[in-house]
């Protein structure tokens, strides 16, 4: 294929292009540009899926420059699944945002979304550690800008705290890259996979520790979760959905990639090391769920649920050595949670926008006047609880299967109790929503929201459930990944 038509390059160029156009053009052209751009990106991912399915992986040297000067873009099954999730969720969220911000779009919402998507796509496709640093920063800065887009003091504080956390995370990552380059003279992830051995010098161990810890900070794994709830819970609904569904998954993806690729020799040399992310993940599930159960505001409930659900992603690390099951469980959980959390945040956004109160109590009676949004919230809840036939169920099933095969029954206990706790906070909302408004509560029925607001949430939630039924091709893609 001619390098000019390579979908790999266009997946990064397209969002950069439409984001720049959206920045220059008047605000009202933003949604059209974004929708056209994301639609074209989706076509690129589908074209790429054909290539990857037939060849296993696909590479592209940016500008035709050879490594080490050039930048190598690579796509395999793992990156393809993340790319599909990103463009799919982004398309639904762009539709939602168009109607959510029908009166006034926060300044620079569309350009920032474009730059965020460009950074994420580049992150999923980059094969060198330094380029990954640049994409991490691009994603982080765009995400901080989006959090601040609300403009209130609480949002600015959340954005500042998020910014400092994300800068410390990527600073640690960059320092690690510097140590790695000093030791091996290359930053190519595939080359480093063969160069780094268990006898690596102390500097390389230090680099590994710094890079992985930095990424944990960016993924908001307990105890680094402090910045997430205010940032995700305080931002406008489409932004919260973008951040919770996609952005935290990007740094998790990179953590997984480094764990399986360049640092595989180090993590295998110390088998106990894998228990650290798993233990933190278990703590995150319990603590995040507890805070979600106790939350006063609806979006804080959803944000703390993200803290809990991210914990599941890290339970897979002690099980990765036992075969493809654990990796499939992790990626399926990331996908199902991405769809479900996007659905939950946008449904919550509609409930708050229409009901006029951002408190959990504000949803009382919503079943009567917002049935579709509430149904979307409940469907997304089904995935978070892990009830069959949802994607969350299949992910937990695979996780439990892998945990039993590896003889780690405590992971089974944590996974199951996390599902129960999720049930408590989801039903806390549903119970209130079905409560009849009291007799003296003679508030006029709120106006019906635009149909698009309700149905995009429903489509995302339905996707998170249906993925459990149609996961076979997805799992096959991940099983073919050679770390």
């Amino acid at each position, binding site marked *: 294929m001619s390098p000019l038509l390579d979908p790999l390059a266009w997946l990064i160029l397209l969002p950069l292009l439409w984001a720049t156009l959206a920045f220059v053009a008047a605000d009202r052209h933003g949604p059209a540009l974004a929708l056209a751009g994301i639609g074209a990106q989706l076509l690129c991912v589908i074209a790429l899926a054909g290539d990857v399915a037939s060849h296993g992986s696909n590479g592209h040297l940016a500008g035709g420059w050879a490594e*080490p*000067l050039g930048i190598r873009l690579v796509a395999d099954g793992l990156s393809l699944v993340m790319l599909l999730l990103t463009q799919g969720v982004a398309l639904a969220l762009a539709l939602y945002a168009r109607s959510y911000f029908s009166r006034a779009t926060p300044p620079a919402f569309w350009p920032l979304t474009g730059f965020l998507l460009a950074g994420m796509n580049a992150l999923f496709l980059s094969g060198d550690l*330094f380029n990954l*640093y*640049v994409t991490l*920063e691009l994603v982080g*800065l765009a995400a*901080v*800008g989006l959090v*601040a887009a609300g403009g*209130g*003091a*609480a949002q*600015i*504080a*959340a*954005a*500042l*705290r998020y*910014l*400092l956390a994300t*800068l*410390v995370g990527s*600073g*640690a990552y*960059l*320092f690690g*890259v*510097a*140590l790695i*380059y*000093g*030791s091996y*003279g290359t*930053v190519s992830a595939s080359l480093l996979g063969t160069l780094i051995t268990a006898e690596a010098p102390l500097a390389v161990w230090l680099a590994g520790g710094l890079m992985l810890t930095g990424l944990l900070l960016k993924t908001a794994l307990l105890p680094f979760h402090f910045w997430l709830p*205010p940032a995700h*819970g*305080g931002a406008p609904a489409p932004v919260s959905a973008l951040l919770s569904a996609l952005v935290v998954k990007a740094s998790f993806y990179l953590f997984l990639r480094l764990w399986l690729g360049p640092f595989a020799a180090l993590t295998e040399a110390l088998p106990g090391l894998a228990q650290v992310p798993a233990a933190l993940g278990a703590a995150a599930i319990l603590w995040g769920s507890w805070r979600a159960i106790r939350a*006063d*505001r609806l979006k*804080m409930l959803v944000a703390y649920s993200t803290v809990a659900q991210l914990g599941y992603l890290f339970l897979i690390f002690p099980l990765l050595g036992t075969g493809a099951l654990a990796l499939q469980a992790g990626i399926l959980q990331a996908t199902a949670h991405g769809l479900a959390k996007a659905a939950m945040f946008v449904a919550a956004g509609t409930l708050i926008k229409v009901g006029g109160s951002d408190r959990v109590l504000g949803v009382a009676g919503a079943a009567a006047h917002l049935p579709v949004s509430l149904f979307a919230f409940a469907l997304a809840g089904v995935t978070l609880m892990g009830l069959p036939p949802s994607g969350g169920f299949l992910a937990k099933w695979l996780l439990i299967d892998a945990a039993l095969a590896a003889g780690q029954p405590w992971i089974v206990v944590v996974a199951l109790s996390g599902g129960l706790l999720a049930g408590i906070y989801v039903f806390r909302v549903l119970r209130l929503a079905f409560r009849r408004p009291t007799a003296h509560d003679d508030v006029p029925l709120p106006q019906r929201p635009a149909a698009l607001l309700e149905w995009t949430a429903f489509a995302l939630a339905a996707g998170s459930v249906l993925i459990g039924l149609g996961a076979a091709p997805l799992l096959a893609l991940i099983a073919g990944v050679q770390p």
Partner: protein
Amino acid sequence: MSAGLIYAATGCLLFVLGLGGVLLLKALLRRILAFNLMGSGAFLVLVGLAQRDGTPDPVPQAMVLTGIVVAVAATALALTLARRWHALTGRDDIARVRDTGLQIRRKANDRRKAAR
């Protein structure tokens, strides 16, 4: 000890100082400066460690240039947010701000004003 190693050791020191600053200081401006110190430390390590037989390696120099661009962008964003924060609240730190608390307090103030 070669010049490269001295640079790298200085870089490590700067990085640790900067990290401590970002985590421990209260004033926003100082924390932003500390972040820049962290970045400079990492850049020094990158350039210092990569010297081979006295001849500098051009690849990390290009990386550092890119890194400086990223750091400038991040600093600009941080300063803009800090100014906005200062304009909205008159404060120069975000140490003890509870987001929920702030909103509740503001709502209570509004209600008090409305009652008058």
